[in-house]
């Protein structure tokens, strides 16, 4: 039986880089890396406010009633980054605790939610020369895809 893991490792070496990344999702390290990147965001790329360039109109349309305030904030805020970093850490702990199915599903879900929350902001930040939010979104997208694949694989066994 000891020859079989070696065979699987040999197969992983021959297959595509996606397969190698997919093999990493058996460990909590991708989620821990994502948590570290998110936790360091307030230091590396803090968010800032941009004053509005146009004066407000006399009549405000109804569609803007529930929109956010006119002062836009560029980048990921500190509390948002720390919150999602905590969630990634919780998911990593689940996998470290040998609960691969629930941990992978947890990380995939919260990575997808991070894309919903900060996905558009990462592209709007490019206008001001900020590329770090795009790095965070790319890592979250990779985590969502790879751990989601892992969850589906374990779920149907």
């Amino acid at each position, binding site marked *: 039986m000891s020859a079989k893991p070696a065979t699987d490792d040999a197969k992983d070496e021959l297959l595509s880089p996606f397969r190698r990344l997919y093999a990493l999702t058996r460990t909590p390290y991708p989620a821990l890396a994502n948590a570290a990147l998110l936790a360091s965001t307030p230091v590396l790329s803090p968010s800032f406010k941009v004053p509005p360039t146009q004066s*407000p109109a006399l009549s405000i349309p109804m569609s803007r*009633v529930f*929109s956010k305030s006119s002062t836009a904030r560029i980048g990921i805020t500190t509390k948002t980054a720390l*919150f999602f970093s905590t969630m990634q850490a919780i998911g990593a702990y689940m996998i470290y605790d*040998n609960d*691969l199915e629930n941990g992978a599903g947890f990380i995939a879900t919260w990575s997808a939610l991070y894309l919903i929350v900060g996905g558009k902001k990462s592209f709007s930040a490019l206008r001001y020369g900020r590329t770090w939010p795009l790095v965070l979104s790319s890592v979250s997208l990779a985590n969502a895809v790879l751990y989601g694949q892992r969850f589906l694989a374990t779920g149907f066994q």
Partner: protein
Amino acid sequence: MTLAFNMQRLVFRNLNVGKRMFKNVPLWRFNVANKLGKPLTRSVGLGGAGIVAGGFYLMNRQPSKLIFNDSLGAAVKQQGPLEPTVGNSTAITEERRNKISSHKQMFLGSLFGVVLGVTVAKISILFMYVGITSMLLCEWLRYKGWIRINLKNIKSVIVLKDVDLKKLLIDGLLGTEYMGFKVFFTLSFVLASLNANK
């Protein structure tokens, strides 16, 4: 009640923005007046909610009847070779079962929160406000002891793999048996609802 307070601040933040939108805004805007009385940002409650979620996770490692006996086989298979079964195997099995159940509550709460939050956000924002407000009001009334919800007569039908979905959704959202599910469902539901509509 800290979590409910944070949720309330999250929910009612946009209402303040709506009120301000209806005011007569002059063509010129004073910088000093602009900074005073600014509504709370969305991320104010997120840090506290995250800490509360972590605290809930550490405190609520209690046994649960959510997972059936069949799911224990998968948990045993996932153990690594560096963890031999030594000592009292019955106690280890019971502890393992409870931990798996807690993890499953947290994952399913997050997953259902995201899915339902995005769905609700696409339908109506007001529907989301009514839903969250009703949920918090129900929690507050139970905390005051003015109402009591007894759902033990409702029979469970829906089963997903080894999880009783109906029992999880009803007892998780309205009861106090699955606090892990409730905490993570609320967090992901609010975040998905507020952000998916942009």
